[in-house]
């Protein structure tokens, strides 16, 4: 996929590029408003990551132009402003998602995948990983052509794992993805452990052994 990252903080921009390139995405960058407008106007991207507060202009204006020109890029706003009004404004203008800084790259990745699935590639609501097949619309999972029943959070967890396959995910990142701001209600991460274990059992029973425990307190979904 071709992704444009409009972000004036170069270090953050480069970290995003590094992370996304591993999945084989083609990443282009724009470090200010004019570069962002120019590139988004001239080329077609599958996804545009848009920082709102650029030194020489607002990312929202780029968004407006894109929508006026009926470009079909998926747009995710990344902003330091967590206020609901800004978020609603961005979404009203036609952004597909809104992420508040600081965010986890794994979270960004999973949002990018979700945006790509939604709308832009019709009929692409089936994700396949070897013998596992996930339908993101009906929220069902089939392993070796046998349905497995997952709870809501287990389904989200599996989806998160597969969109971030071959990457190390810490318990904190997983907890935050699943419960958002409520993740700090968990006194310890035993709870995550129990959750992951349940999912692992359900998958392993059907012959899909992909969830690995890594050093420290991380997990990795991989077939290698």
């Amino acid at each position: 996929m071709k992704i444009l990252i409009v972000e004036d903080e170069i270090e953050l921009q480069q970290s995003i590029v590094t992370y996304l390139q591993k999945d084989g995405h083609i990443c282009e960058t724009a470090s200010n408003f004019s570069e962002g407008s120019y590139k988004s106007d001239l080329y077609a991207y599958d996804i545009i990551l848009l920082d709102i507060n650029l030194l020489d202009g607002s990312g929202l204006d780029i968004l407006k132009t894109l929508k006026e020109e009926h470009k079909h890029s998926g747009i995710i706003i990344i902003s330091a402003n967590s206020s609901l009004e800004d978020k609603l404004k961005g979404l009203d203008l036609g952004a597909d998602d809104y992420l508040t800084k600081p965010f986890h790259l794994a979270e960004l990745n999973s949002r990018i995948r979700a945006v790509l699935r939604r709308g832009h590639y019709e009929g692409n609501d089936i994700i396949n990983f070897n013998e596992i097949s996930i339908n993101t619309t009906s929220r069902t999972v089939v392993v070796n052509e046998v349905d497995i029943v997952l709870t809501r959070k287990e389904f989200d967890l599996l989806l998160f794992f597969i969109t971030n396959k071959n990457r190390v995910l810490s318990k904190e990142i997983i907890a935050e993805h699943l419960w958002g701001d409520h993740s700090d209600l968990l006194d310890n991460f035993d709870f995550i452990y129990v959750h992951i274990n349940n999912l692992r059992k359900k998958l392993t029973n059907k012959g899909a052994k992909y969830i690995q425990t890594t050093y420290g307190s991380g997990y990795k979904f991989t077939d290698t």
Partner: protein
Amino acid sequence: MSLSKKISQKQLLFGLAIVLGSLTILYFLTRAYIVAEAKESLYHTNFRIEQQLVQQKEVTSLFPLFEIHQVEHLHPDTLKDTIIFDVLQNENELFKELNVYKTINTKNYHIITRTLMVEYDDTLLTILITFGVIIILVYLTQFIYNKNLNRTIWTPFFKNIEILKAFSIRSEQAIQLEASDISEFSELNIEIEALTSKLSTDYHNLKQFTENLSHEVQTPLAIIQAKIENLIDGSKDLEQDHLKTLYDIQDNTKRLSKLNKSLILLTRIDNQQFHDVEAISVNTIIEELLENLKDIWNHKKLEINFSSRSETRILMDRSLADILFSNLIGNAIKYTNANGNITIAITSDSFKISNNGDNKIAGSDQLFHRFYKENKQSKSLGLGLAIVKKICDYYNFELTYTYSNNIHEFEIQF
């Protein structure tokens, strides 16, 4: 005591002292003058009688005004007060009496002259009363005049006090004081205007600073977080303890970021930046929250009872409503021991959440303070309840905490 009352009171007391003092002085002065006049008149009469005697004319006595007696021996002259029964008035009267002994034409005479003091006393009294009445009249007129004058002069001052009372530091508008042509008052106005405008500027700068700072902090945090994630992600060569350190850094970066977001929220409520109000169904919010957190409270084996008589709707900002209830319910889930009970009850104008807990909160009076932590080791930020309190204050909800029979209870009266 008000200024004008105080001034009036002092003025009255002072006036009374002046009236009494001046009347006393007047009394003694007038009296001395009258006595001197009486004396002069007695000597004058005596002199006339002596002249008559020298010319060897017959002088008959006229009791009690004067008497002439021939005597053997001479005595020293005296002047004294004496009381004589007046047949005419049928009462005792005070007389001033002059006794002169003198040898005239080889004869020794005792000449007594008297004058009635009563009329002098009447004169004295009349003078005193007249003077007293004049003084009191002048004084009273002055007093009433001053009082009215004070009222006019102080009017801008009192108006300004009311304006100052209504002044709010949050207000964007500069304070507008009533002008006065009295230099002290206009000086005071200038100083107050300067002071309040500085106060407002400082307050708004501080507000701006807090807001900017919090937003600026988010970007470096995002960079740190992204870099660590890339590091962990390419971690094939990392030692186990290095990985552990990276996770710890990640964990604390997240805490810092949460802290920052909470402070931004508190500042935004302080700055009154939540204007969108809608009728929020408390029932729906609670049901959604409980559903969303179900895995967590099921894992702790908590029993949650939620009861409501009817649908309760309150007017507030949606995001604040989410935060309010999620903080209170989250707190209950977090601090109730495993297998414990949580009871949530709502009525048309209140929300109550209680959970069992064996220990009383030590600093229950500081419970709603920022950064208050019951347990210092806890990773909690100590901002959750401060935010709850702030939201309640913002909408004038009454928030109370009680602990009895091993039950912690938070109640909000809408």
